[in-house]
């Protein structure tokens, strides 16, 4: 393909994936509220549209028409930049996550990933690290004590868990011999990484919960002590930006868990089904989204089942349990490779 074709094809893919992500975010918020209602024996949103199905759009338009309040003590520039960073990170990371095998459309061999780069995992790690800046800037620039405490807590938490996250990925790289997400998925065609390295899988999932600031690790937003945490002084679309970014990060975390540990689009028995080429592709793409949906449901389920940690428990868990466990996982995988080769 020449340059123009690459640009056109990737623009189509970007619009497609961005649309899917925004729709999923909208309905993830809706399902979170519905599942919360079921967990607490309530009805949940049921007024806007059939069974409240239009609720997310009503919420977005409400926030769009609200006044954008900037507190007098705030640093106006940094206060505006923080939600931009959060949104930017949330909507660039999906670029390297593959949703299916290569497909053949109009004679072109098209990979079902926006950017098929050989340093995909590093790209994801680099961008999720940038996400810390959004929360730190938001906390610092608001000029409120709650925001400052929430921002500092959050940055300390995110960098602590980033280490065990990085070490867990080391185990995946040992088996895949590549940083390219498509190679990582293909290396799991026979056996999923979650089965070969259960410790790494658990440390990665726990770190992903901490990185996305979800319960039981949502100390930055602990309502009883810090009001809204880092976004206490945010209103209108700036608040919506943080909200959107949080849910988009959840989707990215689920997609990364599926890609790195749950075999991406591969299912162990897919070859024995005897499906023809294009039906197999459809089946594999569906299996990717089903796995991702299951992970997202798990995120919400945990939120409504487990109470919040205390801050010292959280830091202890990160440094004294997760970090040694993820190191043990690397050695475990290296030993397995040495035995089998």
């Amino acid at each position, binding site marked *: 393909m020449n340059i123009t074709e690459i640009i056109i094809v990737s623009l189509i893919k970007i619009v497609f994936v961005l649309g899917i992500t925004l729709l999923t975010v909208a309905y993830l918020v809706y399902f979170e509220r519905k599942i919360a209602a079921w967990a607490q024996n309530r009805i949940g949103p049921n007024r806007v549209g059939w069974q409240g199905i239009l609720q997310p759009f009503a919420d977005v338009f409400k926030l769009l028409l609200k006044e954008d309040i900037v507190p007098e*003590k705030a640093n106006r520039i940094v206060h505006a930049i923080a939600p931009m960073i959060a949104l930017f990170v949330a909507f660039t990371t999906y670029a390297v996550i593959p949703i299916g095998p290569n497909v053949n459309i109009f004679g072109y061999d098209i990979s079902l990933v926006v950017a098929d*780069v050989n340093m995909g995992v590093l790209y994801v790690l680099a961008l999720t690290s940038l996400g810390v800046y959004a929360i730190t800037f938001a906390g610092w620039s608001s000029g409120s004590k709650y925001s400052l405490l929430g921002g500092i807590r959050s940055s300390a938490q995110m960098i602590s868990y980033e280490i065990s996250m990085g070490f867990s990925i080391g185990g995946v*790289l040992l088996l895949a*011999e590549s940083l390219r997400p498509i190679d990582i998925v293909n290396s799991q065609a026979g056996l999923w990484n979650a089965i070969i390295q259960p410790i790494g899988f658990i440390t990665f999932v726990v770190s992903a919960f901490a990185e996305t600031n979800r319960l039981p690790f949502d100390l930055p937003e602990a309502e009883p002590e810090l009001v809204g945490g880092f976004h206490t002084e945010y209103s209108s679309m700036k608040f919506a930006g943080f909200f959107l970014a949080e849910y988009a990060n959840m989707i990215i975390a689920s997609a990364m868990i599926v890609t790195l540990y749950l075999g991406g689009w591969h299912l162990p028995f897919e070859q024995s089904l005897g499906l023809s080429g294009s039906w197999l592709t459809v089946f594999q793409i569906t299996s990717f989204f089903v796995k991702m949906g299951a992970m997202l449901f798990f995120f919400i389920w945990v939120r409504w089942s487990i109470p919040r940690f205390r801050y010292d428990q959280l830091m202890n868990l990160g440094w004294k349990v997760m970090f040694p466990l993820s190191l043990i996982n690397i050695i475990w995988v290296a030993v397995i490779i040495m035995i089998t*080769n």
Partner: protein
Amino acid sequence: MLEQYIPIFLVITIALIFAVVTVFASKIFGPQRPNKSKISTYESGMQPIGTTNERVSIKYYLVAMLFIIFDLEVIFIYPWAVQFKKLFGELGISVFVSMFIFLVVLELGYLYAYKKGGFKWD
């Protein structure tokens, strides 16, 4: 080879435009009627006391420094991990032993920080 990065630049551009437009959208659509009590700092309805330019606990700096040290080790391990299978076929167990020694040294540093109370929150 640089062709594979074109989509990344496109994604970054679109995400930047999306982020800026979203943040400034409510400036256009929303009302602008600030008053003194509306723009004052939120403190549970009370008059705000003091400023936020206060000192931050040293523990957070400690965590930040420990993060820099250990995160560098993560990046140091990645090239080894990617090459491990291939190098193990050529050089045998020494590939594993050399990294194992490095991890032991890293763990000694970790134990030192542990004993010094670097991970203690009270």
